[in-house]
């Protein structure tokens, strides 16, 4: 009799510990999503500002410069941090993922011109600035990858039956993936202005 009660109490305790461990894990995952999102936001902003520096540097022809400046403007006019604001709730004209992808494509169009680097090399500060743009773009690629990783883990933890049954994620909304075109490397087929 006593042993039965001990077993039941022990089982209840164990179950409680397990559930609170799961809930704690989901909570920690949400916190990691927040950190990853901040990191992604920072890298995107950094990329925008370096792209603007390139646009106004006088190194490029004004048409390429204008193209980049307009794309940077597009990323700034979308409120909300990366991937947080659901589509349809944004005050801006274009969702951030699309605006950031536009900037990627504008940068790619500039960088993939045949002989682009040769045309700039030797100009004051050109090599450093180009390297900085590429580094910033690569950081966006990394930050987005890490962000989407932790979003996937979080969504998976939230989707488990126990977590759903006991509402372990509380009122926190499921984090959203941030999808965008972030590759500066052009496809082989699209060599612009080629002859």
């Amino acid at each position, binding site marked *: 009799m006593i042993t039965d009660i001990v077993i039941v109490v022990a089982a209840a305790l164990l179950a409680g510990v397990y559930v609170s461990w799961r809930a704690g894990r989901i909570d920690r995952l949400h916190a990691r999503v927040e950190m990853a999102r901040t990191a992604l936001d920072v890298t995107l902003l950094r990329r925008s500002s370096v792209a603007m520096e390139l646009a106004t540097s006088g190194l490029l022809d004004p048409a390429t410069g204008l193209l980049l*400046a307009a794309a940077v403007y597009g990323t700034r006019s979308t409120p909300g941090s990366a991937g947080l604001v659901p589509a349809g709730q944004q005050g801006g004209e274009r969702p951030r993922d699309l605006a950031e992808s536009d900037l990627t494509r504008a940068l790619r169009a500039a960088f993939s011109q045949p002989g682009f680097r040769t045309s700039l090399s030797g100009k004051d500060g050109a090599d450093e600035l180009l390297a900085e743009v590429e580094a910033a773009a690569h950081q966006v690629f990394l930050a987005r990858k890490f962000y989407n990783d932790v979003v996937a883990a979080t969504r998976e933890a939230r989707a488990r039956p126990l977590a759903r049954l006991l509402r372990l994620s509380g009122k926190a909304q499921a984090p959203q993936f941030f999808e965008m075109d972030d590759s500066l490397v052009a496809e082989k087929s699209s060599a*612009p202005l080629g002859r």
Partner: protein
Amino acid sequence: MKIGIACPYSWDVPGGVQQHIRDLAEALIDEGHEVSVISPADDDTPLPPYVVGAGRAVPVPYNGSVARLSFGFLSVSRVRRWIRDGAFDVLHVHEPEIPSLSLLACWVASGPIVATVHTAIPRSRILLVTYPVVRTGMEKINGRIAVSEAARTTLVEHIGGDAVVIPNGVATRRYRKADPLPGWPGPGGAIGFLGRLDEPRKGLSVLLKAFEILGPQRPGLRLLIAGPAADAEEVLHRLPAGLRDRVVLLGQVSEDDKVRVLHSVDVFCSPNTGGESFGIVTAEAMAAGVPIVASDIDAFRQVLRDGEAGELFATGDAADLARAAGRLLDDPARQARLSAAALAAVADYDWSVVARAVFSVYETVVLGSTPVAVTASGSDFPQDGLS
């Protein structure tokens, strides 16, 4: 005069700016001027003899949509070579605020430069952000033309400076002859309409109400309606069921089909309730020689010479439109008279007239100026090594 014209958009893509440049260039050539147009174009696109291709345009995101533009240092060197070889007296750039050939031409050239602004830009902040990038090119412009009052307002408010308004012309000879669509106008007569179906100011609902009056009186009469609409079905449902099969909706039509539509009807109706500064569609109908019944807004009163070149009715008054259209349908002699008067009146809006107005801007900016040349700012870019 030797005139160099820079086009920002791909020549092989249909568009208002390209068409404007083509019509202007051809009208100037007809006047005996030497014209060369530089435009992005695919290498295998057949080009008119006066167009120089600047290589394939690259699709890039710009202002929230994808545009096909030419930019980069290779485009710079092509523009520079075109300017050097052309030895132009005047350089005429179109839409220089777009990142393409026109902006590059401003940047590498010195000498008399005329710029035409086509679009009205409602957002101004983007210009504040991007203007520093384009300032060097923009400040060289000696004379500006806006194709509409709205485009001029954009310029005055956002960039500063002023512009003369010279509206688009009508290439009247392109509208003069065309085969009617099969089966039109038909024995019972037909009335035509062109324009956005769901834009209230275009006045389609006035015409539909008038057709409710005319339709039962004239069993064979039909309506031919061409133009885009978000919901074409809804348009038909505004009519009583018995009349719906006598209304034909063509949707958006090509330029060629537009001319055929104009030649497929006995009477063309412009029921606009306002918001027109000129009424290009009405002018095109005049050029096709189709008798017109139009609302008496100022723009139409002017182009139709107070009713001499077309029947006018009280704006927004469906009963008056039904009366005016009915009278015109019944009177072939009056139709012929109005048609002839319209053809004569529209000659004032022909491209040849517009081209002369543009040419007088050229004459003003070349006064006391040296011919167009390549500046130093363009030449610290490498020469076109690939050609």
